[in-house]
């Protein structure tokens, strides 16, 4: 009885949440109400079902085993196969699909950059899109006013974004958690509002039109999605390579220490000020690169492309994929770019309702589901696993009394 009541309440709530999408379809209302209740039932039963639990556990077991047991040679082979697939990909797909893949590439760079700040250094940045905008507008303005080459703008954009990263980082060094999030959010909005209102330079909401596409020599100008595809593939590979090296370097370890405990990190002799600024700069850099590329691909940019929502999506990619995990973040970026595209064609024939209007809703629902079933992300980094699924460690904690005794007797041997 209680359960039925609960299902009803949840259905109503779901109906209320989805109200704006219904328009004047009475039928849809009923469907959504049922869907809400049904969904809740399915989720709760699934969560408590043994098979699903086992299935999830087994999945993460295999994945862990896969990650751990691959030796260097095997890993090279896997990466090689992936690279060949990526290289051949546009040859077997139409322009639209390749175009989506190009967007995936941009977001992979963005998400990997944000992963440095959020995933490794643990600094919650909600204004990350500002650096993307900096890169895009830098190239846009240089191209329109001075016909600067794309290839020169690429490193300039990275440098400029890194500088802005330091500019944002410096005043926020003392802030943590929620406060930092608010300040970075404000910074992101500031940049967008400046772009929107500084008419003389940025042409305000009209945006910049006629940005030049990249070219190789005089003859070859980038025009097809496939051209951009190979370019962004190269940029993404460089990003992955550098971020991976950073992750395993002393700098990466320093970031992780700061994320874990800032005071302790300082006591270990880590220069926290420098390391945090470095995280902001090196994170922003990739957004700058992505921005230059984005501007050259679109040949048109306006402040509309750099809203808070973009920051949120990029953050979602990092969290969904698994904070701090490079393969996870890449997967997160791909999923969150491809999914909304797939939902574009989502259509219920018997209802004559075009679900593409509700695609963001469905998208959000899927996010919620992932977070319920796999809070550590799709491919979590080893450390997140320790935090959220301390399975083996729990067993140890349960044995605590003997455990302490054991310590005592062991130490006595000294």
């Amino acid at each position: 009885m209680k359960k039925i009541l609960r299902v009803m309440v949840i259905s109503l709530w779901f109906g209320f949440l989805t109200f704006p999408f219904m328009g004047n379809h009475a039928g849809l209302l009923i469907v959504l109400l049922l869907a809400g209740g049904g969904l809740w039932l399915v989720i709760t039963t699934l969560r408590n079902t043994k098979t699903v639990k086992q299935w999830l556990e087994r999945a993460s077991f295999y994945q862990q085993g896969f990650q751990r047991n691959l030796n260097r040679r095997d890993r090279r082979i896997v990466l090689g196969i992936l690279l060949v697939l990526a290289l051949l990909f546009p040859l077997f797909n139409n322009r639209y699909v390749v175009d989506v893949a190009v967007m995936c590439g941009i977001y992979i760079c963005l998400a990997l950059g944000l992963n440095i700040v959020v995933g490794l250094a643990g600094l919650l940045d909600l204004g990350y899109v500002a650096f993307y905008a900096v890169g895009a507008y830098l190239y846009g303005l240089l191209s329109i006013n001075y016909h600067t080459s794309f290839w020169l703008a690429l490193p300039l954009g990275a440098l400029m974004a890194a500088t802005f990263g330091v500019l944002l980082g410096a005043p926020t060094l003392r802030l943590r958690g929620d406060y930092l999030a608010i300040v970075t959010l404000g910074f992101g909005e500031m940049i967008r509002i400046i772009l929107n209102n500084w008419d003389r330079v940025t042409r305000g909401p009209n945006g910049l039109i006629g940005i030049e596409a990249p070219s190789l020599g005089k003859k070859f100008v980038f025009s097809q999605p496939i051209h951009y595809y190979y370019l962004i593939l190269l940029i993404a590979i460089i990003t992955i390579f550098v971020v991976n090296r950073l992750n395993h370097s002393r700098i990466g370890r320093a970031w992780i220490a700061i994320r874990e405990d800032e005071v302790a990190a300082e006591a270990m002799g880590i220069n926290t000020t420098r390391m945090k600024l470095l995280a902001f700069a090196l994170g922003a850099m990739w957004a700058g690169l992505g921005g230059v590329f984005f501007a050259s691909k679109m040949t048109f940019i306006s402040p509309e492309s750099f809203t808070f929502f973009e920051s949120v999506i990029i953050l979602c990619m990092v969290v969904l994929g698994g904070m701090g995990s490079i393969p996870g973040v890449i997967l997160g970026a791909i999923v969150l770019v491809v999914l909304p595209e797939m939902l574009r064609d989502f259509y219920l024939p018997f209802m004559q309702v075009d679900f593409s209007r509700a695609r963001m809703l469905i998208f959000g629902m899927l996010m919620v589901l992932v977070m319920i079933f796999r809070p550590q992300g799709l491919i979590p980094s080893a450390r997140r696993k320790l935090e959220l699924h301390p399975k083996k460690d729990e067993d140890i904690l349960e044995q605590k009394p003997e455990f302490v005794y054991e310590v005592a007797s062991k130490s006595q041997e000294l």
Partner: protein
Amino acid sequence: MLRLHNVHTFYGHIHALKGVSLEVNQGEIVCLIGGNGAGKSTTLMSICGINKIRQGIIEFNGEPIMNKPPDQIVAMGISQVPEGRRIFPRLTVLENLEMGAFLRRDKAKIREDLDHVFSLFPILRERQKQAGGTLSGGEQQMLAIARALMARPKLLLLDEPSLGLAPMIVEQIFKIIKEINEEGTTIFLVEQNAHMALNLAQKGYVMETGQIVMQDDAKALLRDKRVREAYLGE
């Protein structure tokens, strides 16, 4: 080795240290005792450079260090075991220890020191692949001390190593502190557990509301009437 002269530290408007002077000589164990909020931890944080002092001198081996950033002070050979242990909970025991050697680049010697701290704390060797946060309180304290040792300090600062631990474990830890000292590391110990600290140390300072109110031989302080009343519960 370490000398503080007339050190003043503030938290905003709060005058936390009001002219602290003390001295730690090479090879000694010196303890600083006092109640809650007396300024003991602030003293340590000031030595490490994490809290900047407003006035006074802090010297290490004759060199003023009060204006140096914490990483340089660690590099000079002062290592701190912070209050409440502050281990990195999600890193493994081994990674925690590696973090302690962050400023060092001599890989072979780091390896050696790792073996050394594992011989001091055998339990850590067993648990090296386990996340630091899953250790018991006593083990975490051992890890915190081991981590500080990984920096190969000349002077080890310990902030309340007995905090929240069972008496038996405290005794073990103090035994190991003594051992570390016998190997040649100078130790400056801050403690509320005055009895344990004064028994271990050669010299003691007593702190009240940001000032050193007494200083003497540790054995003499143990016998002192005021100390016995205020800190030993008699």
